[in-house]
């Protein structure tokens, strides 16, 4: 077997739809109808998504080769076969949705260019190729699957307790399909600015700064406890003739479900792992992707594969209950997808063995627990003391944290725990709650610099 190299971007070429020349930006947007972007909210008015995150991820190439909001035919293809019209696999509907009232008020038609403003400033344009209507509940249901249609992995019908289902359910019914272009680059605020490595830059850093030939991606929506740290360390022994050169942590930043940690704590918590040498920075980098997590287990794992291949990783770790919440999917759904495929979702074979598929290699991992007999954090498929095991259950760890107990070194590294407390003090709460979601939807991760657009 030849030595592994950085795979090409998904679709062959990274999307770069960010206009940096001010004159060009002004020309592109001159005379366009303006529309101020706003968050998607749930039945109680709590923000659960902001389309600006999708526009950023598309235009900076995280979702390559996707270039914008999907037209109807593409949406249908994605829901049926998880493929774009260009054949490349893609898991989720990505849609620019507006309400009937906004549609009427805008008075735009197919062929028009819309100027999207964010925090009152020009941010991006959308070239409207097609205007059509969706039934959001139908899109939500088909996005995640049903026990009848997807019996391989769906165990119970999706409902209002599933945050990803709710995101699609509360999409507005009018869709503008078409290409996005960012015309005014937002500026990331602290601490996000340190973790912003769009795919082109990330590939550059991996190649020329870190000098990693191989690199394994770690998906996270969590502040890392020692179980996560061991997963990263052990999964990184995968590679070819030697372990992977580096570990790329990619945190999903956006509206999350209540009980997850605030984004700032997730990023700085992972950063503390390398800052204090638990995994030295020469072998570890913390990055982020803007995305309001859909918690779609196997479906989400496809998006993770796309993002991290675009960022330049050779491998991707997938755990049990990957990107999951509740018991909607089989706990091994992601691993089934990446070892056998899931025909009902369009995969007769794993996503890296089909045409127009992914090049990133899956590394399916089981579980890490603390074993008092081994006296260490042990791998579930290695340690023979399953009776004595002590699991890093998320709810158990949340219990310790919310009681304000300083966790022992085998659960959280002290420096990582201090990051949790730092952001706890800022928000008066250690976890995501409604107040945090509302504040986040207002403040966002970015500010948008002022830009004057000529009237015509």
């Amino acid at each position, binding site marked *: 077997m030849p030595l592994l190299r950085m795979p090409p971007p998904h679709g062959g070429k990274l999307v770069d739809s960010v206009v940096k020349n001010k004159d060009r930006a002004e020309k592109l947007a001159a005379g366009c109808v303006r529309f101020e972007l706003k968050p998607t909210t749930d039945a109680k008015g709590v923000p659960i998504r902001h389309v600006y995150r999708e526009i950023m991820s598309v235009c900076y190439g995280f979702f390559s080769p996707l270039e914008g909001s999907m037209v109807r035919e593409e949406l249908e293809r994605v829901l049926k076969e998880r493929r774009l019209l260009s054949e490349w696999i893609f898991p989720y509907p990505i849609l620019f949705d507006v309400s009937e009232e906004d549609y009427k008020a805008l008075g735009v038609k197919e062929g028009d260019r819309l100027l999207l403003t964010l925090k009152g400033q020009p941010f991006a344009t959308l070239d409207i190729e097609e205007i059509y209507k969706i039934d959001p509940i139908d899109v939500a249901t088909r996005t995640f699957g049903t026990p009848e249609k997807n019996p391989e992995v769906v165990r119970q019908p999706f409902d209002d307790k599933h945050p990803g289902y709710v995101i699609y359910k509360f999409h507005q019914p009018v869709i503008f399909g078409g290409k996005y272009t960012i015309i005014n680059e937002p500026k990331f605020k602290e601490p996000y600015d340190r973790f912003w490595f769009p795919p082109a830059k990330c590939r550059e850093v991996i190649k020329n700064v870190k000098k990693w030939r191989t690199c394994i991606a770690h998906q996270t929506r969590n502040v890392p406890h020692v179980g996560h740290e061991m997963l990263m360390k052990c999964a990184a022994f995968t590679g070819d003739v030697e372990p992977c050169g580096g570990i790329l942590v990619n945190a999903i930043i956006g509206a999350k479900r209540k*009980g997850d940690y605030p984004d700032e704590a997730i990023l700085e918590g992972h950063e503390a792992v390398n800052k204090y040498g638990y995994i030295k920075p020469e072998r570890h980098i913390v990055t982020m992707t803007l995305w309001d997590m859909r918690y779609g287990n196997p479906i989400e794992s496809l998006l993770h594969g796309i993002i991290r291949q675009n960022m330049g990783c050779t491998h991707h770790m997938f755990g049990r209950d990957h990107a999951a919440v509740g018991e909607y999917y089989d706990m091994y759904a992601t691993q089934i997808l990446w070892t056998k495929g899931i025909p009902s979702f369009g995969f007769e074979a794993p996503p890296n063995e089909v045409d127009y598929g992914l090049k990133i290699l899956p590394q399916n991992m089981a579980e890490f627990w*603390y074993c*008092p007999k081994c*006296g260490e954090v042990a791998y579930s498929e290695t340690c023979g003391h399953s009776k004595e095991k*002590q*699991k890093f*259950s998320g*709810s*158990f760890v*949340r*219990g*310790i944290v*919310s*009681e*304000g*107990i*300083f*966790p*022992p*070194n*085998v*659960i959280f590294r002290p420096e990582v*725990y*201090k990051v949790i*407390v730092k952001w*706890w*003090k800022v928000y*008066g*709460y*250690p976890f995501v*709650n*409604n*107040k945090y979601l509302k504040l986040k939807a207002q403040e966002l991760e970015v500010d948008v610099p002022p830009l004057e657009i000529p009237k015509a």
Partner: protein
Amino acid sequence: MPHFIGVIIDEKRMEKIKGTPLEKEIKDMFGGALKMIAVPIPEEKSKEVLKAFDKARIDSRGYIEDVPVAFRRAVFEEMIKAKSLNIIDNVLARISEIQEAAKKEDEYIPPPEVE
């Protein structure tokens, strides 16, 4: 099979337990890095706990998790008062007071002092 409420015993709580019959109930977790007392809860009572708190659930070890801090605190207080683990009725007697305190926990939990 009974369920359990795991009460973590930190240094402050340890002082209140020393010399009482509760001391022998202390279990080591994570190689002794964490001390815990598992309070058994008969199944029909654990149903009442789940009913009282919508986020509460039983995890794979049979422990009731994702309960409010106020509930865990009440379990510890009753345990100290009675010097026994047979206290779930005393806790359930206070349930409306605990639910009231728990409501505030959705908005604010005081951060610990960590240097």
